[in-house]
């Protein structure tokens, strides 16, 4: 064997040993259920009659205290910034469905076709900060509807075989968090500041340009929502989390209210596409059959462009909270 061949063989062995070895290392998983327990405790303490499920859009648009005053119900918010339908499903199944106290109503705040796109915002930081903390150790429906659908055979198989790859979002988020905290400590000593708090302060909604923020959101949606004929309601409804969400509500004797919100583009007068209009009609009919209340604010002229903060955030609690209370009053 020549020296060159020996070198190549040794290099191949080293390469295979390191990559192969990584298949045997099982990174330590965070204990499951901490956030679920915390949220259940909050519900037990608040004993709400109405739970509003959503993300930062809900937080920006509705005041829980005011809504409570106007509806006469105790109101509790269950939300995470950036959460979408996969996360709402986990909220319904593992928090609301599992809490001993059941609210009379659950309101889910959403836009356009977001409730029937099961793969939207399920990866990267979304997975680490929202999906995993609200999952039980086995979530077969989440795996089937969200991950198998999105990954395809090759990546999904690799995830099953390679623990480091499967837990990548947690590991990456952990390591990046450590790096951020290291530099924060390096600068300011062991103060009470956390990286998240510092970043939220510096990049608060007021600091961001609302149009650029909106464009960024649309770009992100484009990748997940527009690229795959996702406005065909009949194609996606049974592959989405909406039926199980309705099912969980029904099993727990909860009345479900879905609230579709007006988007910045609509407030700017942009017309909806034909396919979106058809989609919303189908959604409305479906929800009527399922006896779920559907409230659609997307064409409400009282919501105008000046009421918006960054992107699609309707930053006008005073305007919108009474509108919402008035819209849900017939169901109360």
């Amino acid at each position, binding site marked *: 064997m020549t020296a060159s061949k020996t070198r190549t063989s040794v*290099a191949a062995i080293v390469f295979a040993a390191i990559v192969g070895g990584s298949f045997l290392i099982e990174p330590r998983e965070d204990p499951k259920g901490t956030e679920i327990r915390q949220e259940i405790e909050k519900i037990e303490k608040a004993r709400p009659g109405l739970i509003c499920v959503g993300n930062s859009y809900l937080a920006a648009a509705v005041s829980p205290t005011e809504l409570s005053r106007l509806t006469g119900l105790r109101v509790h918010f269950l939300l995470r910034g950036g959460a979408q339908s996969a996360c709402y499903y986990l909220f319904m199944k593992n928090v609301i469905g599992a809490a001993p106290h059941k609210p009379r109503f659950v309101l889910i705040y959403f836009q356009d076709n977001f409730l029937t796109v099961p793969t939207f915002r399920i990866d*990267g930081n979304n997975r680490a900060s929202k999906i995993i903390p609200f999952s039980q150790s086995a979530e077969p429906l989440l795996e089937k509807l969200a991950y198998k659908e999105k990954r395809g055979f090759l990546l999904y198989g690799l995830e099953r075989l*390679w623990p480091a*790859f499967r837990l990548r979002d947690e590991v*990456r988020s952990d390591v990046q968090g450590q*790096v951020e905290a290291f530099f924060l400590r390096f*600068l300011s000593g062991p103060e009470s500041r956390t990286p998240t708090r*510092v*970043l939220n302060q510096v990049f608060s909604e007021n600091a*961001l340009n609302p149009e650029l923020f909106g464009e960024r959101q649309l770009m992100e949606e484009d990748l997940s929502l527009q690229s795959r004929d996702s406005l065909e309601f009949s194609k996606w409804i049974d592959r989405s989390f909406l039926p199980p969400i309705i099912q969980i509500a029904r099993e727990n004797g909860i009345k479900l209210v879905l609230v579709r919100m007006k988007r910045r583009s609509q407030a700017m007068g942009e017309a909806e596409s034909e396919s979106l209009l058809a989609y919303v009609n189908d959604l409305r009919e479906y929800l009527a059959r399922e006896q779920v209340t559907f409230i659609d604010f997307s064409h409400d002229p009282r919501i105008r462009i000046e009421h918006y903060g960054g992107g699609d955030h309707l930053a006008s609690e005073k305007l919108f909270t009474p509108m919402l209370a008035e819209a849900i009053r017939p169901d109360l």
Partner: protein
Amino acid sequence: MLFTSTDYITFLLGVLLLYWFLPSVRWQNILLVVASYFFYGFVHPWFCLLLVGETLVNYGGARLMAAIPARRRLLLWGCLAADLGVLAAFKYFNFFFDNFRALLSTMGMQLPPFAHSILIPAGISFYTFLMMGYVIDAYWGRVEPCRSILDFALFAAFFPQTVCGPIERANHLLPQIQTRRRWKGSVVTSAAPLLLMGFLKKLVIADNVGVWVDKIFMMRHPPLPFLLLGAFGFAIQIYADFSGYTDIARGTARLFGFELFENFHSPYLAVSPSDFWRRWHISLSTWLRDYLFLPLSYAVMRRIDSDRVLFLKTESFAYILGTMGTMFLAGLWHGAAWNYVAWGSYYGLLMVLYHLCGVKGNWKPRRLRAVSAWAIMFLLTLAGWALFRSPSLHWLASVFHAPRWGTAGPQIAAFVMMLGVILFYCSPLFIRRALDRWLPGSSVAWAAFYASVVIIIAVFHHGQAQDFIYLQF
């Protein structure tokens, strides 16, 4: 089809498997043409029509030049007009029309608003320049017009380089297309490091750093240190993104037995603007030099009889005109927006200023001068990236108009944290450079490095895949 999608991996494996079992160069080329059109039209099949159209025009134009030498000039202009017409219609129409309309309105004339909403075909600037280079070379007699339409179609559409280059030259790629490629082990061993580095740069470095860059450039009014950090982050992001694409393109081409141009050579080590352009997007900068700058400069010199123009030597005057014209168009090539034009013109201006200060293209300072020249050039490069990345020139002007320094506690903390995270994600590039310098021949060290790269890609790739930045150009 994106290089970083699983669709692409499946497509590549399928094509490779077939390719190496084919009995002749002709069948290999047929498969590659079919695969290239499949790749290019995967999302929007109509893009292929444009590629077919340009291929036929340029192939036919060059063949006719050989057949009717007396009409060569006319044919050249015909081909160039067709190529530039396609670019103008698809990429620049809205930009020119809007600006023309705004100009007329300043003179009191009104035109109704109009904008076509046709998608800009991916890679249109890249393959148009590739084919323009070919017809110009054919006109100058530098290449023999290609006889086989199949070979030329592959030259124009070869999928690793169609959408983001490198912008190949006929005398480099066509001979490879016409030669039988035979399987050997080095096909894989030479391609794998490029592919791994390409995926690492794009998925781990560019996409993770890009998150922070986006945050900064989304601010209404970032403090100046944030703008500097944003420009630094963007310098890393765009380098990792584009050179990552090039690495994957070159690695993929090697899997099929082809060698494509290198496009980058440590661009951030440049000591002058012209040095930067010798290291950054090399296939574009050499294209611009050969087909635009030199012809333009020589044309200016030929038209001026005297030794001096104003207070300049004729050569310097021609250099200034050629440089400014070329860099203006280089900026416009990147996109139909004023900040790209400003970015290109900014480099033109820098080159002219360096030239007037006596710093010519082959300038090589030593020691302390080299360090200072590098530091100055690096800061100038960051200023250029701030122009390039800013949402608009108005936004950038407003940041400088009422500068803020960001001295509040959270802002300083956020600055240091973001810098730390950006450097953390770049660390594999520094390790690679150290290996290159200290252990270039250690196969064990390299094997360990690339094995770590595989694991880093698996664990640290950003969850939400982003498009390559240069896809929009």
